[in-house]
């Protein structure tokens, strides 16, 4: 049993699609917000997976006779992106909950007028 980048990307695709389904399927805007962490979590998995598996030719060392290209894993840019995505997801949910709560208090006539 082995894990490859394809397996990671399949899981990420499933998370993103489930999150998108939750967003579009829910009538309640606050309930639909639960899809945002799922989609962002899927993106974070993809970033972490690429950082784990992807190669980067970081060193092209010139020599008098030939060039030696060393293929190593680069700095964990994908992990950093996953961290930022997780923080952004929490902030977006907080903002969405606040805005949905505010919109729920505004009477329907004012909502129509403000559109």
């Amino acid at each position: 049993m082995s894990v490859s980048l394809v397996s990671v990307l399949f899981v990420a695709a499933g998370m993103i699609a489930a999150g998108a389904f939750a967003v579009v399927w829910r009538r309640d805007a606050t309930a639909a917000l639960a899809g945002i962490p799922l989609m962002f979590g899927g993106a974070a998995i993809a970033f972490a997976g690429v950082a784990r598996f992807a190669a980067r030719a970081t060193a092209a060392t010139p020599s008098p006779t030939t060039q030696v290209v060393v293929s190593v894993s680069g700095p964990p840019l994908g992990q950093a992106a996953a961290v930022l995505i997780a923080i952004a997801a929490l902030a977006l949910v907080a903002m969405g909950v606040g805005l949905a709560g505010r919109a729920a208090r505004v009477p329907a006539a004012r909502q129509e007028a403000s559109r």
Partner: protein
Amino acid sequence: MDSPHAIGFFASSAVALAGAVLVALLGRRGLRSLALLVAGVGVAGVEASLSAGFAALVTLVSFAGSALLLARPDHRAYEWPVDGLWRQLGAVGAALMLALLGYAAYRGAFAHVRFNGGDLGTAAVGRLLFAREALATEAVVGITVIGLVVVTLLWRTRERER
């Protein structure tokens, strides 16, 4: 990747996907928040099995915070002003997106290398966030501050209205 990591990856993937589907399908708010937390545990497990321990920790905190926010007792429902046809079209679009992303994943075996990082990678991620990618970090911090300010203002408005 050795066998324990692979088993952890597949088990965490199953937990994450099951939690995500439950979030989309469950009707009760408390259960939905619990499912979101379960999905967060799964996502964190996947990231931990990919040697991204620090990202897993932050992701777990993010999902737990989101679940707490969505499970608030003073929940107010606000329904989208769209009819069922658009929701069904959106669901079909989500299915098409899954197929598209699945195909992209199938074609995604573009690299196989040995991983040279550690288990947690906290220092490396910190160097990236606060030195090399400082602008992106500041942008996310700005979004976070704006979100918190909006929540605080709305909460104060509500308290004033009571």
